[in-house]
Every structure is written in structure tokens, then in C-alpha cells.
């Protein structure tokens, strides 16, 4: 097929190999590798705490792993953003417009490529959780949801990085957003609105599950935002509506129940 021919009839056929290539590039990106370094340090601190104290629990000492994965998620966003800005950086946007693969397919491949960093996080977390289960009392249901939340934050921020490249095409933006996400982390005591930050760790498993739903909804919205730059279809609109409904519903539940006004105590 020539560059001037028609687009492939099945974009998914080209999406998969593209996503594979982009995933390999993402997990070898220096920013992502720096994030992996932070996770390894966080894991080492957790393991040292467990080995040096008999009363350690995941709840007391596992925060080092959680914070490190949060930093990794931010660096994944930076790496995905730089990958999505590659065309622009190399002044090759117009050249790539002539490729037989549609821009929306290439954006979709970048979004799908965030599965690569997510797989690395799964491997790292599986190792440390396996060790934790063998040494400390088992993880609570809330702890387990928090781990899945951290994993979904990696995918969500990776997708946000791709969306940012489409709407605010400057490599300056993603690191600034990363700093902003750290700045709004829940403090002590937390404020009610901070339940909507990605790093709010709710102490009740049910509320943590609502927060997970909120993160998944945001991921869908960011994905739609990234794709809608180059493609407008009914399925995107439907996905956008589903994402928005999920985000609003979960946020409403979290706002209502995370910090009950009667007690003045927040569950995170």
C-alpha cells in the first residue's frame, strides 16, 4: 500500500505492533527508568523495616512503596508525554500525516503502550507483596485496593501525558503537572477536596474502591481527550460520557463519605 492510498481497513491490526514498539520505548525511557529506581529504593526501605522490626505491618511501612510508585507514575506521564511529542520535536508532524497509519491509531498505540510500564509495576509490586505476605500479617482489603489504585495511577498519568501532548504541546507542561500533583497530595490533616487527588489512600476498602473507580473514569476521560484531537466518532463520545458519569458519580460518593461532617475526621 502506498502512502497516498487508503487507510488500512482494520486500524487494530496496526495498533498492536505500534503499541508494542511504543511500550518498549516507554519502559526504556530514562525518566521511567529513574522511576523504577525510586520504586526499588522504596522496596528496599520497606524490606529493611520488616527485617529490622518484628512488629512491622504493610500499613505502617508499606507507604515507602506506595510513594515510590506515585513518583514512578508521574515519571511515566513525563515519558509518555515526551514520546507523544516526538513528531513535533523532530518537525515531522506533516511527514507523518502522510503515513498509511492514521494519527488516531498512533495516539491509541501510545495510550495502549502505557500497559508496558503497568506490567513493570505489576512485577515489582508482585515481588514486594509476595515478600510482605511471607513476613507480616496479611494485607487488609483496603491495602489491596490501594495497590491496584497505584497501578491504575500509572496508566492514568501515562494517558494524561499523551493527552497533554495533544492539547498543550510543550515538554514543559508534564513536569509542571507532576510537581502540581505532588503539591496537592493529602496533608495531615487532609482537606475534603484532596480526596479527589490520585494519591488519596482511603482507609475503608469500600471507599478505596470508589476512588479506584474515580481513577479509572479519569483514565477513560484522558484517553478520549487524547483521541478526540485526531478522530471524532460516536464510540469516542460514548466512552467520554461513560468516563464522565463514572468520575462524577465516584467523586460525589467520595465527597459525601470521605469526610463526614459530623465527626470531622476524614477516612484518608
Amino acid at each position, binding site marked *: 500500500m502506498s502512502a497516498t492510498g487508503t487507510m488500512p481497513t482494520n486500524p487494530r491490526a496496526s495498533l498492536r505492533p505500534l503499541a508494542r514498539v511504543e511500550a518498549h520505548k516507554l519502559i526504556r525511557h530514562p525518566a521511567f527508568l*529513574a522511576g523504577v529506581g525510586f520504586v526499588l529504593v522504596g522496596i528496599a526501605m520497606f524490606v529493611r523495616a520488616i527485617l529490622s522490626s518484628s512488629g512491622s505491618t504493610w500499613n505502617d511501612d508499606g507507604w515507602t512503596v506506595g510513594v515510590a510508585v506515585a513518583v514512578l507514575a508521574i*515519571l511515566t506521564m*513525563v515519558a509518555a508525554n*515526551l514520546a507523544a*511529542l516526538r513528531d513535533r*520535536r523532530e518537525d515531522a508532524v506533516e511527514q507523518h500525516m502522510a503515513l498509511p497509519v492514521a494519527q488516531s491509531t498512533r495516539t491509541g498505540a501510545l495510550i495502549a503502550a502505557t500497559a508496558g510500564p503497568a506490567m513493570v509495576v505489576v512485577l515489582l509490586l508482585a515481588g514486594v507483596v509476595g515478600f510482605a505476605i511471607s513476613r507480616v500479617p496479611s494485607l487488609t482489603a483496603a491495602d489491596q485496593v490501594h495497590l491496584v489504585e497505584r497501578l491504575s495511577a500509572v496508566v492514568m498519568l501515562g494517558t494524561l501525558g499523551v493527552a497533554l501532548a495533544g492539547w498543550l504541546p*510543550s515538554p514543559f507542561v508534564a513536569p509542571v503537572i507532576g510537581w502540581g500533583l505532588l503539591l496537592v497530595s493529602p496533608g495531615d490533616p487532609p482537606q475534603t477536596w484532596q480526596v479527589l487527588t490520585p494519591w488519596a489512600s482511603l482507609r475503608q476498602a469500600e471507599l478505596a474502591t470508589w476512588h479506584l473507580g474515580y481513577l479509572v473514569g479519569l483514565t477513560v476521560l484522558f484517553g478520549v481527550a487524547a483521541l478526540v484531537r485526531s478522530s471524532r466518532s460516536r464510540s469516542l463520545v460514548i466512552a467520554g460520557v461513560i468516563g464522565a458519569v463514572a468520575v462524577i458519580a465516584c467523586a460525589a460518593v467520595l465527597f459525601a463519605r470521605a469526610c463526614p461532617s459530623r465527626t470531622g475526621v476524614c477516612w484518608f
Partner: protein
Amino acid sequence: MWLPAIVAGVAGVLVVVALHDREAATPLEAVAILLASAAGFAFDDPVAEILAASPTTLRQRRITRLALLGPPIVLTWLALVATQGPASWAETWALAAMFAGLVGLSLSIAGVASRRSTTGRGGIVAGPGLFVLVIASTLIPPRWRPLPLGDVPGGWTPIYLRWSAAAAIGLLVLLWSSRDPARITSRLGIPAGRSTPRERGERIG
């Protein structure tokens, strides 16, 4: 070069407006990080490859670009510090040292990255590089933390010293990375950016 600085300035104003009621350190630290990240784009030159062959050395070209971008960034920072109003002169000096340190590190990262990249665009590395350095610094206990955001044991003096040291190191790395790759350093007349045949292990003659 200008877009990041403008965005950083606007974002800095928003941060100071939004966090005006808080202690001065938090918003002004955020402003310093923003402006320092923007300063890293000072050396991003779309025509770097063309100008590389000009008689003006790399160091002179970088000084010219810094002379253009530096004053607006410093003036923005001074204006935002005056607006926020730190609690004391000691805090003001600590924030000044931190700003200098962050800018120095950002410029040094950008300088090294620009030199290594073929397109001469090191700004994309400055922001993430600064992020990684500052986060890595928080892994070190406060007593020894090289880039302290917030209080450390010993009061203001360690903060002045550590951030001033960061600024000095950043400046030295920047100067080192600004050596012109085309300068003549050997009697054979071979530019410094190239290795001699002997260094490449080739037989001469």
C-alpha cells in the same frame, strides 16, 4: 525558549494568588521550581546546528541567550517574592539561595543535554531532571539532604550553604558543558570535539 518562561510566570502568579494565605515557603518554592524548569529551555535553539559552524563560540551563544531569558525570569521571581512577603530576611535569603540552586542545576542539566543531543534541545531534560534530583534528595535524611525543601536540622545556615553549593556546582557543570566542540586544543589542529587518529587507535603514517 519564551513559551515555557511565559507559562511558568503565569502559573507562578496563579500559585501565589491561590496560596497567598499560606506560609511563604510553599508557594515560593513552587514558583522557584516553575521558573527554574523554564530556565532550562534557554539553550533550546532551532538553528543550533547552523550556528555551530559560526565564529561565535558555544559559550558566547549561551551567554547571549541567558542574557535574554535570565532578567525576565529573575524579575518575575523577585516580583512574586515581594507579593508573597516572606516572614523574615533569613527566609528571603534561603529562598534566594534555593532559587539560585534550582536555576543553576536546571541550566547545567540543559547544558549537558544540549551538548549531547544532535538537535541542541536540552530543555526537555531540564524539568524531569530537576524533578528526579529533588525527589532523590528527599530520600536522604534531612541532616544530610543536599537539596532541602523545607526545614533541616541546623537552621538557616545549612540551607544557604547547600543551595549555594548546588548553584556553584550547576554553574561549573554549565561552564564545562559550554566548551565549544570546535575549539582547537591540540598542536595537530584537531577540534576538541573530535578524537585524534592516535586516540582512535589508528596507525599514523
